């Protein structure tokens, strides 16, 4: 087997809650409690589960948005959990994140050009705006948007277009690993399909590895190579897409699959 690009062993992220009242006891919430998995180069692994299962915390811990309690996360052979913020900064180019809410994750005061240019200068990928604009136009084209949009602000775009811009901001850095946290959940069904196709195509063409975090089993089946089902901070079942969807072993996986409303029609994706 090829060497994994990301290898996580026994990852734990625990939170201390505020004491309830003056004399209340502090509680520890074990959001992520001993999670291990590998992602191979070019592979898409999905973390699927219901709210509160810890799937988002895994992604946030890997990008240093939360602090891990224990465990290891080897990225390109280096444990990224123990790095200082300064040591982690150059790696932020390689590990990028797509967020759920296209309305909250773009700075409303920056033009699209500024939004996409900023990471280029931070990571030294462009020396001046002329260079940056070439890269920005290329990347906008990649996500199906015209270069004319560069001078516009986020409020001028629909949810689907904003999510394309969010994806462009990630792709422009040519990362090695993309963590997508509910990347299509806020979109209308017809737009969700467009963006999902786009993510799948970009992933295939560029060979990026991806950790795809979602609660939607249909979306997960569509995008993943392998799937890990999380429940209460742990992975209860992990396997290839076909193992999970066609022959689920764990009772929780079966429960999840059977809870999805089905449409009986003669014309399924004809």
């Amino acid at each position, binding site marked *: 087997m090829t060497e994994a690009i990301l290898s996580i062993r026994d990852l734990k992220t625990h939170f201390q809650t505020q004491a309830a009242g003056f004399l209340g006891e502090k509680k520890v919430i074990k959001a992520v409690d001993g999670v291990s998995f590998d992602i191979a180069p070019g592979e898409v692994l999905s973390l699927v589960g219901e709210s509160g299962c810890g799937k988002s915390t895994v992604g946030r811990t890997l990008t240093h948005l939360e602090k891990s309690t224990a465990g290891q996360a080897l990225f390109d052979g280096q444990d990224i959990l123990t790095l200082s913020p300064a040591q982690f900064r150059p790696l932020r180019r390689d590990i990028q994140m797509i967020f759920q809410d296209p309305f909250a994750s773009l700075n409303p005061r920056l033009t699209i050009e500024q939004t996409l240019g900023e990471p280029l200068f931070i990571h030294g990928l462009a020396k001046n705006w002329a260079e940056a604009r070439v890269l920005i136009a290329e990347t906008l084209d990649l996500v199906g948007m015209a270069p004319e949009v560069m001078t516009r602000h986020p409020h001028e775009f629909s949810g689907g277009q904003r999510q394309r811009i969010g994806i462009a901001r990630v792709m422009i850095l040519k990362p090695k690993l993309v963590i997508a946290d509910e990347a299509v959940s806020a979109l209308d069904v*017809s737009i969700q399909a467009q963006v999902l196709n786009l993510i799948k195509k970009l992933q295939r063409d560029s060979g990026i590895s991806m950790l795809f975090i979602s609660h939607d089993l*249909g979306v997960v089946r569509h995008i993943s190579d392998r799937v890990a089902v999380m429940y209460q901070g742990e992975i209860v079942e992990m396997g290839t897409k076909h193992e999970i969807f066609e022959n689920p072993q764990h009772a929780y996986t079966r429960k999840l699959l059977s809870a999805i409303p089905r449409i009986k029609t003669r*014309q399924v994706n004809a």
Partner: protein
Amino acid sequence: MALLEVENLHIAVSVGGVLQPVVRGISFTVDDNETLGIVGESGCGKSMTSLAIMGLLEGTPVRITDGSIRYDGTELLQLSSKQRRAIMGNRMAMIFQEPMTSLNPVYRIGDQIIESLRQHKSISKKAARARAIELLDLVRIPNPSERVDSFPHQMSGGQRQRVMIAMALSCDPKLLIADEPTTALDVTVQKEVLELMSDLQERTGTAIIIISHDLGVIAETCDKVSVMYRGKIVEAGTTENLFERLAHPYTRGLLNSIPVVDHDVEWLEAIPGRVPTLGEELSGCAFHPRCPIATGLCIAKTPGDTYIAGNHAVKCHYADQVAS
């Protein structure tokens, strides 16, 4: 005469003094013991329709510009707001999408149910409390006699949505409108809430309107379906007829956009383009810019209803072709 009859309803929102239409002449009926699903994407007018029926548009920039809404034969649009309030929450009730924001965080859930009971029925506090406990039991909240004193933050999302249902059911409404009742919930909880609603219907004969963006939810729970696009019902019929022969390119596109869990699809057949914005003027069929089979006719002429089977109505010039 059906319990609720909506006829040629037009709704517009006033933007800077100009009325922009959001609902453009829709008609449907719901009867006792029947569940109608209204499905569509954001901005199609489905939520505006439910707010109009409930009379919740007062004091907003949204106006009902034409049409009629009759409940049990009474024209609701001509009632005074006082007469209207006697029906709202009493004979028709609504469940909103966000159980977190539609419950008052500083009152115990029992007190909130009691308030709605005492608003409409002359019953003692003690009897109202007993009824509240009974309702919590009905929506399967464990230990209802203790949980009646819980605050909303002490309950899970699914439990809060069940409290909302309990509150909506408090006065035995004849009509229940549920606007995205399970969208904020996990799938396993969604299943429980939907089952609960259909159980309640079986027991009480309530008419239900479910408004949702999720075709799956609609297909599994409703007797009949209306698909909305840009303020119009573009396809309507019994759930069985409609899903047996989808006859509008939009409904088809919507279905093909959904990634399914039961088999593999390499690329989703997404609907191109985007959902039209409020002020955009579109001639003919409003779906034509996104439609794979649109012709000059679709740009020039607004399609009327074509009937496929029985009451399966489709607003598409090429409905017969799409259905076959």
